């Protein structure tokens, strides 16, 4: 489904990603872990199309299409969803209004009829239950004055509404208490299927108790330096990242 080949990206001339290779197949959950500043969020942002990052080398194919040549909105319409690490507050735009605009543009792109108000509302009700989010929250300005947990639940709610093929969760666990973490993870798990895939970007193993990955990759200095199964995450939780840093830095100096 997703094929990242030798991806290099930089911001304002500073290289952040230095050759990422990653294959994600339908039905899989991949966790991207790594110390702060390793490039995890950059990878998520580059995949979603954030303009500040300049891709200097490499290719990304998503369902056979060259992802990097698409605008952010077309990537979303093709089925890529980024759950933001820091969801943006937009005063004056309600979640309901904005999502209806988004969903209908996505549907139009896919050659589907727009949803009328009634159908949209019933779809919303169904997906709201998934992340235990209140309708009152959704008629308020987007994320304005939401708690950290409410913002993250809203991200997963939007994901449920847009029904993506590939979901990228960028540190969705940050700022969540244990109850919110459970609710958010449940939501993500219910949305998983054989035809979709998930990339979970996280610093801690905690989230992976709830969203169990098939593969765990460790990102360090802009490269995937180690890949394994979910046991690797447990090892990282126990030993921290220093042993990996040492391993990589020593081979680099040799």
């Amino acid at each position, binding site marked *: 489904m997703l094929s990242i080949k030798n991806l290099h990206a930089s911001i304002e001339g500073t290289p952040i990603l230095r050759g990422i290779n990653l294959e994600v197949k339908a039905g899989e959950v991949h966790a991207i872990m790594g110390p702060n500043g390793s490039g995890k969020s950059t990878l998520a942002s580059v995949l979603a199309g954030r303009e500040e990052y300049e891709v200097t080398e490499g290719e990304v194919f998503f369902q056979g299409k060259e992802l990097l040549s698409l605008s952010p909105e077309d990537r979303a319409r093709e089925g890529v969803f980024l759950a933001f690490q820091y969801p943006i507050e*937009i005063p004056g735009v309600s979640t309901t209004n904005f999502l209806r605009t988004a969903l209908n543009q*996505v549907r139009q792109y896919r050659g589907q009829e727009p949803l009328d108000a009634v159908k949209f509302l019933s779809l919303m009700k169904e997906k709201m239950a998934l992340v235990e989010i209140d309708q009152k929250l959704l008629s308020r300005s987007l994320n304005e004055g939401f708690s950290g947990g409410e913002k993250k639940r809203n991200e997963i709610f939007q994901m449920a509404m847009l029904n993506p093929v590939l979901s990228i969760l960028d540190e969705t666990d940050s700022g969540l208490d244990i109850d919110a973490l459970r609710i958010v993870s449940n939501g993500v798990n219910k949305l998983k299927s054989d035809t979709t895939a998930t990339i979970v970007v996280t610093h801690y193993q905690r989230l992976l108790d709830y969203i169990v990955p098939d593969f765990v990759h460790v990102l360090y200095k802009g490269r995937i330096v180690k890949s394994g199964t979910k046991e690797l995450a447990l090892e990282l939780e126990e030993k921290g990242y220093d042993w990996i840093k040492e391993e990589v830095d020593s081979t680099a100096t040799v």
Partner: protein
Amino acid sequence: MSTLTQHELVLGLFEAAPATFLSLRQLGKESFYAQGMPALKSEEYKFTPLAKKLESSLTDFFPANPIKISAEQVKSAVFTGFEGVVLVFSNGKYLPELSKSTEGLTVNLLSEIENTPLGSIAKADKDPFTALNQATFTDGLHLSIDSKKSIESPILLLQFHQAQGGQVISPRIWIEAGDFSKATFIDYQVSLDAAPYFVNKVVEIKGGVHANITYHSLQEESNHVIEVSNVVTNIYQDAQFNSTQITLSGDMVRNNLTLNLLGSNSVGNMYGLYLLQGKTHVDNHTNVDHTIPHAESNELYKGIMADQSRGVFNGKIFVRQIAQKTNAFQQNNNILLSEDAIINTKPQLEIWADDVKCSHGCTVGQLDEEALFYLQARGIDKITAKGLLLYAFAGEVLDKIEDDSLRNYIVNQIQKRLGSNF
């Protein structure tokens, strides 16, 4: 003082003034000569060089004659779903045959009123354009709301303007809201073609005890129009004044909005929105005078400037020594959409009382790129996303308009634009 003051063009305007209100006119003329057209260095008009603009744009500094207006033109100009009465003006002249009053509203020509109160609220010596209007206006309307009368539907002052010779239109309106009365006015100015003219309008509003007056002004004239509007309001005890000033187009527009709070517990809510494109230049000067204790004023002006447009905001709040327990708030937020757009914003608070709550703030920024990316990342195209964000920005002011027909009309006009360059 600009040379235009002595210019034969201005003299022509004086010559053409009618014979009514002789002493009032004389005072206006003297006051205009004393002040003169604001020169380039004039502090009050420094960002808005009106004299220069008038000299270069106007060909014929005479009053514009009224033009013929048809019932169809009125019908098509009135907002869809509008439920109130319409008072029609042609180049400042009231057209009774196309207008309709309502119970509790008394409509008279200014020339029909004995012992005219004109000039007692909008004082000629406070502003050269007020003086010029007082010296040269032809006639106008005196509107009065009966005491204790609440007129639920808004009263539309529909002002058609057209002056092929590039002439001067001097609307003059007096609004008097009796004690405990309530009314909403919508002042809507429409250009009938794209030829330039100069509108020099003065509106005086008096709100009696416990009166509640709302005054919306929608400026949507052609981009060759030069306009100065002086709206001056006095309100007394427990009265409330609400205003929205919406400006969507024009060549050079200057709005002076003055509110004198003259009774305790009086409240002023003043909102403004300017959405500018092309080379439109809009200058909003507000002036709130807290003269007594326990009054409140709230002010929110927002602007979006595209292309080479220019916005100016100057918000003066004056709290006199006696005006303890004043609450005065002012906010001006701006978004610049192009590198060539300009905003000059200046809060100006002068506070002589020591037990007051006053705050002010202004912001100038670009469209929030992070928010734009967030919306795009959900599948919304860039133009729609921009539109959503700009609309949300403007919405805070539009939400203050209670009349659905007016608000919907403005929303539609804005949405037409959002698909284009902003």
